[in-house]
């Protein structure tokens, strides 16, 4: 019997590679720059900031917090600066660095919000901010799940936008005819699945480039919905274009919890569904046989093939399930929030933002959902603070979510590793 001299795993000294060093330092510089900015902002305010914990018309009124302006912003700035310097010097262990990152994030948020409140005669309305976050994030949550499912199976999904649009239209049309939310959601899901079917058919069966087919689906969705809207719906709005949007559903009992009730338990059914779908998809992907197979075909389809997995159908099933979620997300743009379909690009690029969240969330449903929430939060922050007459032109405040995203991907997320066979075609051959 020979001696076992080969170690089972490679254990080698780990050091910081030049790549991660560059990454760490650029992150540090970025955080420091933001810290310096906050520091300067601290001295532009001369009064305290008011943070309202409940909306003006809430049933239960909570007190409005009075936060010292300069002091709080200054403190946040120092926190952020500390974290930035910590990154730059490289003195922090990996775990401490994570803590510092989180602290910097919190510092930026608190600092900015207090600065905004202190710069304005109006209070910062926290409840409304968080409510809006969910409002913006709901369709993104669904979109993100659609992206994660398809891409985990190795199919690049830039067609989320097209799925949204078709589903939004289908939901609006169906509701106008049937006056039933269930029917509308069903139609939306079906529309999403059909668009996903086109994606699956052309990438898996006809081996068309995933990006091309994605762009085509988006264009097709816009052409089809637009044309049918003009030909059919617009000619009889009463019959095909009247929708009473979904109302919030209060979770009995829980809705009266102060602060949390009006945020977490007074939402549209679709929002609850979106939030619940995230752990569901996580569970499907990481705790079921199907999920293991989906991930395997996205990483190494040939390996999956050699153990007898039907690669094409596994991929297709993931893409189609993704289509179902995208369909529900699409419904949010019409029956879920504002009513009838309007022929003016109602999905407004949300599909692309969902795609960005998928990448930022490293193809993990939970992380990607958090990114969707982050994005919703940033947009909500722009919305909430626009009203407060800050000394920044409102067009710049509106850039906030997009700038924040760029900073996040450039500074914090960096290089990400997609599923290894993402975008590749599978041809049975060995």
């Amino acid at each position, binding site marked *: 019997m020979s001696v076992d001299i080969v170690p089972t795993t490679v254990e080698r000294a780990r050091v910081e590679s030049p790549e991660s060093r560059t990454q760490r330092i650029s992150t540090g510089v970025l955080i420091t720059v933001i810290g310096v900015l906050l520091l300067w902002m601290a001295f532009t305010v001369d009064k305290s900031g008011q943070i309202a914990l409940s909306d003006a018309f809430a049933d239960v009124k909570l007190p409005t917090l009075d936060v010292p302006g300069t002091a709080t912003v200054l403190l946040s700035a120092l926190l952020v600066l500390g974290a930035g310097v910590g990154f730059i010097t490289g003195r922090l262990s990996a775990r401490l660095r994570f803590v510092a990152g989180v602290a910097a994030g919190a510092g930026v948020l608190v600092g900015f919000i207090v600065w905004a409140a202190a710069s304005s005669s109006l209070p910062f309305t926290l409840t*409304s901010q968080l409510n809006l976050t969910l409002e913006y994030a709901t369709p993104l949550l669904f979109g993100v799940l659609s992206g994660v499912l398809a891409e985990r199976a190795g199919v690049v999904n830039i067609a989320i936008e097209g799925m949204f649009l078709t589903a939004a239209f289908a939901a609006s049309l169906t509701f106008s005819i049937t006056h039933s939310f269930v029917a509308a959601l069903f139609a939306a899901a079906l529309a999403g699945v059909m668009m996903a079917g086109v994606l699956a058919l052309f990438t898996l069966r006809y081996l068309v480039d995933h990006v091309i087919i994605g762009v085509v689906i988006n264009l097709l969705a816009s052409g089809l919905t637009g044309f049918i809207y003009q030909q059919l719906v617009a000619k009889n709005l009463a019959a095909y274009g009247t929708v009473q949007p979904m*109302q919030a559903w209060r979770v009995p009992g829980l809705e009266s919890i102060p602060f949390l009730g009006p945020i977490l338990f007074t939402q549209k059914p679709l929002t609850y569904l979106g939030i619940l779908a995230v752990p569901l998809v996580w569970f499907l992907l990481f705790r079921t046989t199907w999920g293991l197979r989906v991930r395997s075909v996205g990483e190494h389809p040939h390996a999956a093939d050699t153990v007898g997995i039907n690669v094409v159908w596994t991929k297709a099933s993931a893409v189609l399930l993704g289509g179902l979620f995208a369909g529900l997300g699409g419904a949010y743009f019409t029956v879920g929030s504002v009513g009838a379909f*309007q022929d*003016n690009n109602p999905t407004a690029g949300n599909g692309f933002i969902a795609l960005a969240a998928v990448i930022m969330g490293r193809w993990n449903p939970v992380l990607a959902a958090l990114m969707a929430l982050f994005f919703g939060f940033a947009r909500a922050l722009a919305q909430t603070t626009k*009203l407060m007459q800050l000394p920044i032109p409102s067009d710049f405040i509106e850039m906030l979510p997009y700038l924040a995203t760029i900073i996040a991907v450039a500074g914090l997320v960096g290089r990400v590793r997609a599923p290894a066979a993402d975008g590749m075609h599978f041809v049975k051959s060995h």
Partner: protein
Amino acid sequence: AQPPSTTTQSPAASEATSSSASASATESSAAPTTDFTACMVSDAGGFDDKSFNETAYAGMMRAKDELGVQTKQIESNAEAEYAGNVQSMIDANCDIIVTVGFALANATEAAAKQNPEVDFAIVDYSSFEGVDNAKGLIFNTAQPAFMAGYLAAGMSQTGTVGTFGGAKYPTVTIFMDGFAQGISYYNEQKGGDVKLIGWDEAKQDGQFVGGNNPFGDIPGGKNTASTLIAQGADIILPVAGPAGLGALQAAQESGGKVNAIWVDTDGYVSAPEYGSTIITSVEKGMDVAVFEAIKASLEGSFSSDPYVGTLDNDGVSLAPFHDFEDKVSDELKAELEQIKADIISGTITITSPSQPK
């Protein structure tokens, strides 16, 4: 870029416009009695914008029904299409071409100069100097908005009222200026302290839906209204076209705590599903102006003098209170009548940089 104004479509008009919204050039089916053709070019919003393109369109439809003229129309999808679209209407042998929106001014002016035999009218833009076949149709909406401001200040329970616009265009901010001055006037007269959020008259800056599609973004309008409501505004004046519908939804969801004042047309008629939240509307009679321009052209009495809608000539007005008839006190009603008279007589002067000169 799509100027102000809002929804609107009376049920009757909606019958008429039902075929409208198709982006199509429809030959009138209502047996035209003359071969006079009236034509219209929309701006980037399109005729189905439930907003001012659609209101202007309704004016042309009325001309079709009442005067028996033939009609044609074309939608613009982007700025770069304006000139070409106006050209295509000239090619279609129109007798009068109505262009909707300030952005079409240059194209309209050039077309008018090159085609002296055709009449032109442009909504939201004054007449061109030295061009005698083009008529500007403009509206001093600051006047009824002033009344609306006074009314809102008088009706507010919280002492805070709000407004927001689609985008910061003069045709939008003129409403907001008038509204703001109406509130100030109320505070002055009654020693009140009603606050306006969403528009800072002095800085000429405020709350706008913004984005790529400011007048069509209903969720944007709703969220904008929500932030105003969160700050305590209980009466909201959305000046954002269909995006303003979002504000009506937000008001409706408040369960009667928040109400709205609509603009452009009588919202109680054009958006009846939200009637219970609409106190009144600041009406901008684009349909009337367009109708009158077409009629004048048909009858040969067309002139290039600009049409300026005012309280005096009923080109702009404050709509009836409908469901709020009983909730507005008689005293307030009387004061509003007085204000109207004072504005017409010049006793009250409204200043707004966006006002037609």
